[in-house]
C-alpha cells in the first residue's frame, strides 16, 4: 500500500505540475496554433447573451454550434463580423474588435421581433396621452372636455372616466394640467368664470375623486404648480419668480414662501430654492418667521449659474441634484457641474438615480454618475456624457429599456429602439408609428410601451421586451412612488 501510495502520489503530483501551468495559460487566453507563424498566441473572446436566448451565431462567416448565451473563445486578435440570427427576430450585426487577453461582452442583446406585437387597449379615439411619471396612471384626452377624459391604470389594465356621466363637470373644458412625478394627483385648470376653475383630482381610488380648490389661486394662473407624495398637504405655485405655498387642508395661500428665486425643487418634505447664487432650504410646513437654511453659497455658484437663468431643480437621489435651465442647460451638484450648455429637451434617470438619459433635438446620451473617476487623471473630471445616438430629427421622449442597456425614443411620430453601451454607435430599430404631438409611456416593469395609434387614436400597447426579459427587470424593480404618504 505504501509503494502504491507513493507511486500514485508522484503521479498525481506530476499531473498537477503539468496541468496547472497549462490551465492557467489557457485561462489567460493562450493557445497553441498549428500555424508556424503563430505558435503560442494570446487570444480574446466574445461573450454574447440575447433575449430571447437560443439564437445562432456567425462570427467571421463561420457558423458556431453554440446558441446564445455563448462564449466564443480562442479568437485571435482582430476585427470580427458578428451576426446573431433567430427565426422571427431581426438579425443583430456588429463589427467587434478582439484584443489579446480581453473579453468583449454583449450581455444584454435584445433581439427585436421582425413583427412587433401591438394590441389596442381602449378602442376609442384619443388625442392626447399624459403619463404621470413614476405612477401607474395615464391620463387620456378624447377632447379637452372633462367628460372625454379617462384615467388608465397600466398595471391593472383598467380605465375609468375622470368624471361620471351626468356630472355637472362633463362639459367643462380643460385648459391646462399640472402633475408631479410619483403622485397620483393632478391639477386641472378648467375654463369658466373669470379666472377659471382649478380641480384637484385623485386617481388612485376606485373612482377618481375631484375637488375644487380655485380659492387657493387668488393670484391667478401660476406658471407652474408642483407638489410631492401620495397625500400632499401643500402645493407650491410659481408666479414669476415668487414661490407661493398653497395649503390644501388649511385652504390658505401663503405668499412669499420664496421670493426672487431662480429655481426650486421639492424633496422629502423640503423646498430647495436657488436665489442670488445661494441654495436655501425650507420645510414644507415652515412658519412665516422661518427664513430657511442656507445650505450652499459661494463664488463657484456665481460661476455656475447665470444671473438671469431660471432652473428646474430635481433630485435624482439623496445626493445628486440636476438643474435644467430654460434653454436646455444641464448642471448638477456633482463634478464637473456643467454638463450641457444648451439644447437638453428632457431627461430620465434610472431607478437608482445614478444613470441619466438625456436628449436633445437630434441626439441622446447617457450620463453615468456611478462610473468611478480614473485613477491617474491629472484633472478630476467626474463623469462625462456618452452621446450614444445622433441622427434623429425631432426627439421628444426617451426611456431606458431592459435596465439601462437600451433606449426607446420617440422621434417625431416614430418609436425606435437603440442598444447602448456596446461601444460605438448602433443602428436604430424602428418599432411603430405613433400619434404625433403627444406623449408615449414606457414601463420597464411590463416591458411595454403605451401610445396612441396614429390612424384612429386608440390607446395601444407595444411589447418591447420578450417575456423572459421581463422577469429580469422585475428582479431589479422599478421606481414607483405612488401612494407613499408625504
Amino acid at each position, binding site marked *: *500500500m*505504501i509503494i*502504491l*501510495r507513493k507511486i*500514485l*502520489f508522484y503521479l*498525481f503530483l506530476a*499531473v*498537477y505540475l503539468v*496541468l*496547472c501551468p497549462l*490551465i*492557467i495559460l*489557457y*485561462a*489567460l*487566453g493562450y493557445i497553441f496554433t498549428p500555424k508556424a507563424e503563430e505558435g503560442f498566441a494570446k*487570444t*480574446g*473572446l466574445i*461573450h454574447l447573451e440575447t433575449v430571447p436566448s437560443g439564437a445562432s451565431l456567425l462570427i467571421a462567416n463561420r457558423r458556431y454550434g453554440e446558441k446564445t448565451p455563448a*462564449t466564443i*473563445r480562442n479568437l485571435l486578435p482582430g476585427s470580427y463580423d458578428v451576426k446573431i440570427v433567430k427565426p422571427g427576430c431581426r438579425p443583430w450585426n456588429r463589427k467587434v474588435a478582439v484584443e489579446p*487577453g*480581453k*473579453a*468583449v*461582452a454583449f450581455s444584454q442583446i435584445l433581439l427585436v421581433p421582425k413583427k412587433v406585437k401591438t394590441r389596442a387597449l381602449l378602442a376609442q379615439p384619443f388625442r392626447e396621452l399624459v403619463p404621470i411619471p413614476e405612477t401607474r396612471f395615464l391620463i387620456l384626452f378624447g377632447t379637452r372636455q372633462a367628460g372625454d377624459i379617462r384615467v388608465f391604470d397600466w398595471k391593472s389594465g383598467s380605465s375609468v372616466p375622470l368624471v361620471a356621466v351626468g356630472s355637472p363637470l362633463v362639459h367643462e373644458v380643460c385648459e391646462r394640467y399640472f402633475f408631479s412625478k410619483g403622485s397620483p394627483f393632478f391639477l386641472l385648470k378648467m375654463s369658466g368664470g373669470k379666472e377659471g376653475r382649478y380641480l384637484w383630482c385623485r386617481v388612485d381610488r376606485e373612482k377618481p375623486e375631484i375637488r375644487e380648490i380655485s380659492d387657493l389661486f387668488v393670484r391667478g394662473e401660476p406658471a407652474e404648480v408642483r407638489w410631492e407624495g401620495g397625500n400632499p398637504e401643500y402645493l407650491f405655485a410659481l408666479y414669476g419668480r415668487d414661490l407661493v405655498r398653497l395649503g390644501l387642508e388649511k385652504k390658505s395661500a401663503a405668499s412669499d414662501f420664496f421670493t426672487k428665486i431662480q429655481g426650486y425643487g421639492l424633496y422629502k418634505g423640503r423646498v430647495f430654492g436657488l436665489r442670488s447664487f445661494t441654495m436655501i432650504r425650507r420645510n414644507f410646513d415652515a412658519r412665516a418667521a422661518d427664513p430657511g437654511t442656507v445650505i450652499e453659497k459661494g463664488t463657484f455658484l456665481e460661476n455656475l449659474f447665470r444671473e438671469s437663468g431660471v432652473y428646474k431643480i430635481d433630485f435624482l437621489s439623496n445626493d445628486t441634484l440636476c438643474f435644467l435651465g430654460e434653454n436646455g442647460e444641464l448642471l448638477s451638484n456633482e463634478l464637473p457641474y456643467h454638463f450641457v450648455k444648451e439644447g437638453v429637451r428632457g431627461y430620465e434617470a434610472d431607478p437608482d438615480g445614478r444613470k441619466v438619459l438625456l436628449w436633445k433635438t437630434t441626439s441622446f446620451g447617457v450620463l453615468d454618475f456611478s462610473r468611478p473617476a480614473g485613477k491617474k487623471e491629472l484633472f478630476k473630471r467626474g463623469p462625462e456624457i456618452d452621446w450614444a445616438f445622433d441622427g434623429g430629427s425631432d426627439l421628444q421622449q426617451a426611456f431606458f429599456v431592459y435596465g439601462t442597456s437600451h433606449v426607446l425614443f420617440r422621434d417625431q411620430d416614430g418609436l425606435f429602439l437603440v442598444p447602448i453601451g456596446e461601444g460605438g454607435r448602433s443602428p436604430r430599430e424602428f418599432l411603430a408609428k405613433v400619434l404625433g404631438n403627444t406623449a408615449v409611456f414606457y414601463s420597464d416593469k411590463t416591458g411595454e410601451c403605451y401610445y396612441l395609434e396614429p390612424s384612429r387614436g386608440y390607446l395601444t400597447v407595444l411589447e418591447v421586451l420578450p417575456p423572459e426579459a421581463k422577469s429580469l427587470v422585475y428582479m431589479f424593480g422599478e421606481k414607483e412612488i405612488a401612494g407613499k404618504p408625504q
Partner: protein
Amino acid sequence: MKFIYSRQGLKGKEEFVQRVFEILPGLTSWTLVLGLIGLSFWQPLVSAIFVIIFLLAWIMRLFYMTLFLVLSYLRLSLEKGTDWLARARGLDRLDLYREELAKADRGKKWLSRLILNSHLRDLEMLKTRGKVPPLSSDIRHLVVVPVIKESEAVIEANIASIAKNTPLTRQIVVAIALESRAADEVKEGVRRVVAKYRGEFLDLLLVEHPEGLPGEARVKGANATFAAKAAAEYFRGKGVPFENVVVSCFDTDTVVRPDYFACLTYSFMACPDRHRASFQPVPVFHNNIWEVPGFARVVETGSSFFQLIETTDPEKLVTFSSHSMSFQALVEMGYWPVDMISDDSGIFWKAYLYFEGQYRVVPMPMTLSMDVVDAGTWWRTVVSLYKQKRRWAWGVENFPLVMRGFLQSKKISLYNKIRHGFKLFEGHVTWAALPFLLTLVGWLPAIFPSEEFSNTVLYYSANRFTQAIFGLSSLALAGTIGMSIWLLPKKQKKYPLLWTLVHGLEWFLVPVILVFLSAMPALDAQTRLMFNRRMEFWVSDKRRQG
C-alpha cells in the same frame, strides 16, 4: 531524547520559539483567507489565478483521497473474516506456521491470495528481523477508559464490548479512570458497571484521579496517565513484564468488535518494532449514527472516511482517538501528556521525539465504533459538534511542541523533520482555510468583478474552470455517498423511501458543514492558540437511546 513535551515552564528563547510556532498556523490560515478576499477586490486577476491553483490542487487531492478511501475500504472488507487469534497463535510457532501457510491452498480468488501474501510478508519480515514476539498467551492487555460525565449506559456498552473478546478476556485488565470531580451519579454508575463486569476480566480496576495534581491540566490525558501509573504498580505487583503488556486508551463511548483484541494481539506480535509503535484501529462513528440529525451523520461519516484514508499512509499516520501501544514504551516516555487536550495525537509526537524518530503508527485493519455527538436537540447538537471539532482542531497545539523538538533533535533526519512538520502544518492550515476558499473566496472574483477584470478572458475562464471543478467534485461526492451506503451500519428501523432519499441528500450539506463545522472550529482553535488563549478539555455530549 530528553525533551519535555509540554509548553509549561518555558523561558527565554524557548518560550519565544514556542510562541512563534503557536502563531504560525493561525496567521497563515487568516492570511490565506483574508489575503485572497482582499486580492479578489484589489487584484482579481491574481486572485483568480490563485483560485485556479487551489481548486486544481483540491480536486486532484479529492480524487487521490477517494481512491485511497476505496482501497482502504476494500482492505477492511477483505480482512473482515480473518481469524486473528489463529494468526496470533501461529506466531507462537513462527517457523512451523510459515511452512503451513506456504503449503496451504491459496484459493482461486486473487483477493484472498493477496491477503495471504501480505500476511506471509509480515511473517517473513518478523523472521528476518529476528524480533521474536512474546507468546500470545503471555501478552496482557491493559485498557484504560477515562470517565468524567458519561452515562452508565455509555460506559457499560464499552466494557460489555470488551467482555465479548473471548477467549482473551482473561488476559485483559480494564482500568476505569474515574475523575474525582465526576458527579455522584456518574460514580455510582461506574461502580455498578465495575461490580457487574469484574469477574469477566483478568481484573477490572477502578482508579479515581484526584483533582489538582502538580503540572496537570483538567484534561483526559492526566486522568489516563494516573490510571496507567496505578496499572503499572498492579503489573509490577503481579510480576508481569511491561514488554508483554499492550495498553489501549479508549474513549468512553468506544465499542470494540469481538475480535478486536485478537487483531491487536496479532498486530503487536507481528510488528518487529512493537515497542516503538502505536496501533491504530479505524475509528468509525456508528454507535448511534441513525439516531442523530442528518448533518451530524454527514460530519462523522466524513470523519470516519478521513481516518480510513489516513490508514493507507502509515508513514504519516498519527494516533487519533482510541489507540493502543506498548506499555513499556508508554512507561519509558513518561505516559500521556498531562497538560494537553489532544493527548491522542500528542502521545505519538511525544514518542516520536522521545525515541528520536524511531516510532511509528501501525494501522490495524479493524474498526472500533464510537458515538456521534448527540446533545438532544438540533441546535445543541450543532453547538456540541462545533466544540468537538474545535477540540480536535486544537491538536494544532502539537505543532509548536513538535517543531521545538525537531529543532533540538540531532538524530531525526532533516527529511523526516520536513515531512512530518509540513504535514502537521499543512494539515491544520488546509483544515481551517481550504473550505473558505472553496465555498466563498473562490467565487468572489466572479461575483464582484471589477469592470477591468470582467473584460478579461480570465474572468470567463475562471468561472468555467470553477464550474468544471465543482462538477468533477460531485463525482467524488457520488462515490462518497456510495461508500457511506456500504460502510454505515444497517438501519435498525425501516425508513420510508422518502427518508432514505433524504438520507442520501444529506450529503449536499457538505459545503455548509465544511465551513461551519470544520473550517470555523479549526480557525477558532488556531486563533485561540495564536493569542495564547488555552482551551480546557470539553467532553462531547453523547447519549444512548433505549
